[in-house]
């Protein structure tokens, strides 16, 4: 978190984390397409030719002034593919909150778990812990026929009982609920830490 008193700005960094192809970029694309252009900046995506995120996606959201202060939310996604481990670590630098975008498909469970462990490892190396950190889960791709039940996903992934949402990011289902929840958690968390 970065507070600039001269400009009355409060900057928060939120990172969308999850396995490859789980829909992290799609979440950001939906937010970007639906928000009033006056509230959001350009969406930058660093992609390969095959449309896979190579480094990160980034966009900034402002929601106007609150008690004279201007909160700004910097949203990032990480590349999900396994071999971009160091990029993921880099992007977590200075993170205030995380959205874990899980892929609901049964055959992606292992990928979800592996990426969640990777997140935990990276947070731990920065002195945070998943247990006390503000994060939420989005179970994305609920519309696909081979998706796991929420119960099964919850059991495998949500061991700290964080807020979770059903998502069909491509149609926008759950996208704003997820974002709102993580922002609220971050702000609450900051309050308890001050």
């Amino acid at each position, binding site marked *: *978190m*970065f507070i*600039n008193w001269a*400009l009355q700005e409060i900057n928060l960094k939120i990172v969308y984390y999850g396995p490859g192809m789980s829909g992290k970029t799609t979440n950001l694309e939906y937010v970007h397409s639906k*928000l009033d252009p006056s509230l959001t900046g350009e969406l930058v995506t660093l992609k390969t030719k095959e449309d896979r995120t190579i480094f990160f996606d980034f966009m900034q959201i402002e929601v106007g002034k609150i*008690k004279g202060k201007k909160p700004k939310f*910097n949203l990032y996604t990480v590349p999900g593919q396994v071999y971009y481990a160091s990029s993921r670590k880099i992007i977590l630098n200075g993170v205030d909150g995380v959205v874990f975008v899980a892929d609901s498909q049964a055959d992606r469970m292992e990928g979800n778990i592996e990426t969640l462990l990777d997140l935990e490892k990276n947070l731990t190396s920065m002195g945070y812990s998943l247990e006390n950190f503000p994060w939420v889960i989005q179970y994305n791709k609920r519309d696909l026929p081979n998706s796991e039940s929420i119960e099964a996903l919850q059991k495998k992934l949500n061991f700290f009982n964080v807020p979770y949402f059903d998502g069909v990011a491509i149609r926008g289902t759950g996208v704003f609920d997820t*974002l709102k929840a993580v922002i609220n958690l971050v702000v609450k968390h*900051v309050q308890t830490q*001050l």
Partner: protein
Amino acid sequence: MVQVKKLKDGSRQIILNAKQFDEITRILSELAAKTKASTILLADISGQLITQRGNTEDINTAILSALAASDFAATSEMAKLVGEEAKFKLLFHEGEKRNVYLSNIGDNFFLVVVFDVSVTLGLVRIYTKKAIQNLTSVFESSESDEDASKVIDQDFSSMLGDMLDESFK
């Protein structure tokens, strides 16, 4: 000083007061004048823009700082891989019309200087180095600080919640 507070959970919070901000702006304006740099940014290492000088209208500086921070972070990882123990202190990108010079300021901040190829790199290096020394002393100057808990109170979070509902309709 620029408060870099470690919170209870280990997360980091950076707070800049108004006086420091003015001082920083003054140093950057001077750097811009001396080097004829087209754009100068100061950002924190997580990619959040702090302040900017020069032509910032044609460039999306929020994005530029996010990219520059990642550029830095990526090269630190590269440094580790090639066996360089310290981080690389500066990065230089050479273009046909514009060059970009990035230099870190301690562990928490960095400077981005965008300048025309007609300006010599040596000049940019010298003045940037001097600006970094000045910025470092501003960051280190100790003063009473403002308290974030006064801003981010219960009211703040409920108002933010309403505003998000409004924006995300």
